[in-house]
């Protein structure tokens, strides 16, 4: 029985609370709280239902538990209550009712401001919130932007008011000289202020965007530096480039157009409502009521179109790129008689692309049309009401003209917001990606300095994320001054080992000690100073040859550079060019693959490190030069540790020791002669390659007895 009463009371309070949402003079929160209490006592099932509702989760749950609410929730409730009660006040004519409502409102404010504690919101920050974090430094610019736009709106209203007043005077046939002068005196300064406001507002919005973009670029680069050599684990380099070059630029629209417009399009209708209310409250209310229709129509359309857009957007391809590619590859196409086929495909692509795009476009246009329909429809409605009011004599001609010329301003800001929204979507998506990168965990860096150069691996292993082990249980030593080659088929873990030794992969298992210190505890600057890894695709920077060499050793003398170039067999080439001042384009694109590798080798030699790791660093160099370079590297041994990763047994043969890897496991270790006798796998690899190269060798012998003739 008792439970039934509780249950009935609970529902009564729910009803009263719901009524309170509709009717401005009833308190809502206490009712809902009472409802929660009664329902909890009354019935398990309804209690569960009630605490499952959005309303409860968002507004009541925390409060009941802690007697405190999030600041945002408090503000939201107060704002809603204020709006409802104020609307009620405006609608009713009775003074008593107004006083009652005022008291209720005061009660609300007292209760929420003083009786309920505030808890900080513990929700995880959403991407847009993180963006706001970036805006911190430049928020001032954004606030000023909105202020400028708002002032410009006020100027516009003043001008229209000025016009309307003049017309009213004219209509009443009371227009005289001073009136006109007065009007002009208002007109000109207002025009000037509006000019300045528009100019300054636009400038400030772009300044805000510029600040954010600068910060983001610096932060991304900083992050990558901190992620260090392992940044490939987090994102592919193509994706990083995409996000930091184009992604950052895409934020321009979001920050300079969308954000200020968002706040302005809230401020504008409210301001106009207040202005219009002084003319005629009913017209003002009708126009204000129509404002939410625009975002609502957008939401509705997006719901309907969302699925469809998603289905079709995947088919989006860049036809311009496709066309450019067809032109660039035209010679190839002609050689193989494939140009006709490509042409047909191109046209078919264009046609199917057009169809898909038009379908998506129709949806987008429909949403714009809906917005237009509401915006213009509501404007027309407001104007009609104003004309009727003027006909009834309730408002003057001037007031009606004021409404007529200004009512569209209620909706224009929101319509603009809608179009900016589409444009800034890609920016928001880009921002999300950027924050994923910025928030990715950084590898721990050590602080210790290298104290010796003997390398000792114990049970060292490595596995790339989601892949099988690349290296398993490696235990061996590379003493200082040794010269070791690492061989094995592709996929045997050679390059992984090279990267680990150079400190580029820190998440290895087991132990790698350099001079007695664990590699992962060494400071990055220290490993960079003493260990140098040179890969087959080492990056060559734009500038001159000397610039690239100076990277290895800033302030190296010209002679030192030339010596290094000689060792790397690049000196002859640069003599035919502009010497050390030979220009180099991005990625060293104006050099051949072999020349790039030789430049990278020279740069590494200049760096004068103590441990050198070469990973297929001579793969694009012809055999004769390669042999000479290898001789230079062999010279290093003794004074430096040299580790040479190669798939060419001919090169490995010349090393003091050879490490044979197979599927991440050490097969054998030792000098060539020993291995060739002892290790079957090694002998197999060596013989297979030797057979192949013998072809050229035999030809060489024949070539010694060649006949030379003149034409």
């Amino acid at each position, binding site marked *: 029985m008792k439970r039934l009463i509780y249950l009935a009371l609970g529902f009564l309070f729910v009803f009263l609370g719901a009524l309170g949402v509709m009717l401005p003079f009833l308190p809502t929160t206490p009712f809902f709280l009472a409802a929660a209490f009664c329902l909890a006592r009354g019935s398990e099932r309804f209690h569960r239902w009630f605490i499952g509702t959005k309303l409860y989760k968002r507004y009541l749950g925390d409060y009941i538990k802690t007697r405190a609410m999030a600041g945002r929730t408090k503000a939201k409730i107060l704002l809603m209550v204020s709006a409802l009660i104020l609307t009620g006040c405006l609608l009713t004519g009775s003074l008593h009712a107004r006083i009652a409502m005022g008291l209720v409102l005061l009660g609300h404010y007292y209760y929420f401001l003083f009786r309920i504690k505030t808890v900080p919101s513990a929700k995880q920050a959403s991407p847009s919130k993180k963006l706001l974090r970036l805006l911190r430094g430049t928020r001032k610019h954004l606030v000023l932007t909105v202020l400028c736009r708002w002032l410009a709106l006020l100027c516009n209203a003043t001008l229209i008011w000025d016009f309307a007043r003049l017309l009213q005077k004219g209509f009443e046939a009371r227009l005289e000289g001073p009136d006109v002068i007065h009007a002009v005196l208002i007109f000109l300064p207002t025009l000037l202020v509006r000019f300045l406001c528009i*100019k300054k507002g636009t*400038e400030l919005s772009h300044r805000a965007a510029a600040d954010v973009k600068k910060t983001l670029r610096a932060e991304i680069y900083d992050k990558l530096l901190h992620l*260090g050599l392992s940044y490939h684990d987090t994102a592919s380099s193509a994706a990083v*480039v995409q996000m930091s070059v184009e992604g950052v630029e895409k934020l321009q629209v979001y920050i300079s157009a969308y954000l200020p417009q968002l706040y302005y399009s809230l401020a504008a209708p409210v301001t106009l409502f207040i202005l219009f209310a002084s003319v005629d409250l009913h017209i003002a209310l009708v126009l204000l009521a129509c404002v939410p229709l625009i975002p609502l129509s957008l939401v509705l359309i997006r719901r309907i179109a969302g699925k469809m857009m998603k289905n079709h957007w995947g088919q989006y391809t860049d036809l311009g790129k496709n066309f450019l590619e067809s032109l660039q590859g035209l010679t190839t196409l002609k050689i193989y008689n494939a140009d006709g086929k490509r042409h047909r495909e191109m046209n078919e692509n264009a046609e199917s*692309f057009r169809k898909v795009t038009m379908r998506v476009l129709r949806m987008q246009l429909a949403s714009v049309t809906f917005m237009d329909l509401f915006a213009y429809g509501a404007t027309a409605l407001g104007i009609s009401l104003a004309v009727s009011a003027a006909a009834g004599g309730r408002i003057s001609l001037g007031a009606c003209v004021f409404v007529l010329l200004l009512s569209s301003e209620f909706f224009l800001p929101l319509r603009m917001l809608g179009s900016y929204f589409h444009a800034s979507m890609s920016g928001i998506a880009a921002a999300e990606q950027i924050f994923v990168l910025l928030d990715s965990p950084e590898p721990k860096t050590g602080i210790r300095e290298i104290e010796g150069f003997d390398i000792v691996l114990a049970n060292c292993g490595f596995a790339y994320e989601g892949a099988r082990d690349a290296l398993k249980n490696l235990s061996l030593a590379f003493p200082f001054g040794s010269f070791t080659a690492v061989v094995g088929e592709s996929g045997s873990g050679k390059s992984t080992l090279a990267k680990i030794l150079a400190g580029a992969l820190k998440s290895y298992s087991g132990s790698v000690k350099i001079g007695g210190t664990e590699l992962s505890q060494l400071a990055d600057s220290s490993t960079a100073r003493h260990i140098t890894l040179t890969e087959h695709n080492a990056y060559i920077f734009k500038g001159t040859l000397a610039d690239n060499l100076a990277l290895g050793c800033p302030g190296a003398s010209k002679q030192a550079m030339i010596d290094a170039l000689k060792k790397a067999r690049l000196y002859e080439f640069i003599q035919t060019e502009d010497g050390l001042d030979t220009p180099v384009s991005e990625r060293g694109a104006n050099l051949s693959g072999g020349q790039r590798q030789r430049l990278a080798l020279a740069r590494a030699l200049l760096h004068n490190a103590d441990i050198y790791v070469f990973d297929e660093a001579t*793969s694009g160099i012809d055999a004769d030069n390669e042999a000479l370079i290898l001789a230079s590297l062999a010279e290093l041994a003794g004074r430096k540790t040299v580790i040479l990763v190669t798939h060419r047994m001919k090169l490995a043969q010349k090393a003091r020791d050879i490490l044979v890897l197979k599927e991440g496991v050490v097969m054998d270790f030792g000098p060539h002669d020993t291995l060739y006798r002892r290790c079957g796998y090694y002998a197999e690899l060596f013989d297979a390659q030797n057979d192949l190269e013998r072809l050229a060798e035999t030809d060489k012998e024949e070539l010694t007895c060649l006949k*030379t*003739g003149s*034409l």
Partner: protein
Amino acid sequence: MLKNRLSVMVRLTALVGKLLPVLLAAVVLGTLGYLSASSILIFSAHALLGAVGSTPNTPVGAFLRVVILCAVARGFLRYFEQLAGHHMAFKLLAVLRDKVFSVLRQLAPARLEQQDQGALISTITHDIELLEVFYAHTLAPAAIALIVSVVMVAYIGAQHILLGFVAALAYISVGVVLPMMNTRGRKRRGDAYKDSYGQANSFLLESLYGLPETLRYGRAQSRKAELERLSNDMESQQLALKRFEAKNAAWTDTAVLAFSGAVLFIGLLLYQNGTIAFSQALVATVAMMSAFGPVVALSSLSNDLTHTVAAGERVLTLLDTAPETPEVQTGLTAAYQGVRCEDVGFTYGSRRVLQNINLSIPKTGIIGICGESGSGKTTLLKLIMRFWDVRAGRILVSEDDIRRINTKSLREMEGYVTQETFLFEGTLLENIRLSRPDATISEVKKAAADAGIHDFICQLPKGYHTHLGELGDGLSAGERQRIGLARALLHGAPLLLLDEPTSNLDSLNEALILKSLNQAAGSRSLVLISHRESTLRAAQAIYGMKDGTLTTVTYS
């Protein structure tokens, strides 16, 4: 100059061709849309005047219904205008690309093999996009703005001629004068911004790709400082540009309001004089304020017409170019029996590239050509491919003059591996199969194995179906080279021309490829250009080339 410009414009308009009705539809719908937007205010003003008794005969109720109708019509008119506009834009882009590609197919390879080919291609691609913007987003809005303005000037002029004059002045200032002033300063600033944007971005790109080297050589801080400097520079250039645009936007807005004010003041003055009725002054002001939409839209487009005309001219010139080596379609279809060059000479512009070349390529075996770069080796191959025609002497294929053989048949006889291999967006399989679309998978694999790239492809997660874009850092020069070779081997032509096929390979892969070339040479002839001795060892006869002539021959 002006006449030239005009003829370019006329010819460009002719290119629209069948799409002209769509263009017209977009213009008509757009005009009606803007006029109905203006009508909302104008009819309201009339209704108001009727309601307050200034013009007692006005049917107020009917006018208000028209206002609502216009508001609804405006939305739909705009929808269909945009639909027509975009329909035209996409169609047009396809049409233009189709036309240009058809012409370039005739011109290639001769035209595209010239030094400035990269520039030509990207210019043309860019030009076409510019033209599309011109047709779809400039031509129609300009026409709409013109028509709407004329209608409004006539309407306002009907109230009083002086007001009409002011209105005309207003539309011309906002739609023509201000944008023209805008264009001048904008171009300079735009170029400055583009420069700094390019610099900053290429630096950023380098910093990312070169990150390992930057860290390895301890240059992070200096690189970061430089990046910040360039980023600052770029943003300040962009701000300058935006400041300029902000100024223009503010000027446009001010002009709109100032001219509206002018109409109001003059209208009231005329009313005070008794020249016009009060209603006319009011209607003129409202009409004036209601119809700036299309001209403002035009001013924000503010497209540089000179650019467009220049782009149009380039495209038209290309369409007019006659091919240098027209394709032979009604000639001979021959079976390959070897190639003979008799006293072949070739000049490029005024530069003599080849002279007195006598060379015979037997039906089977390998011929090597060595020589310094620039000695004319590649040009000789291109002549045998008939990218160009010889200037002196003749080239005989199977004892027939190359100029009499059907181009299609010639291409089937000859395969050509260029120095740089061009790979298309798509899978590796598609790229290799380009030379013979009906080849089976096993044939493709065989060709790849012969080119020494099969093992590399197999170790990729998706093997032959690997998309080129998925290959993170892309393929190395050596890998590209081997794919190009696989393509040529799959093609199966009896004559294979190879231009530096091993220049980026290590000796192991070189040996591998030479082995398969040796095998291939049993049933066809190969011409091998290389500066590597080790590669040339595979040839039975090696010709030395110097300054465009063959000097020595070596037989092994």
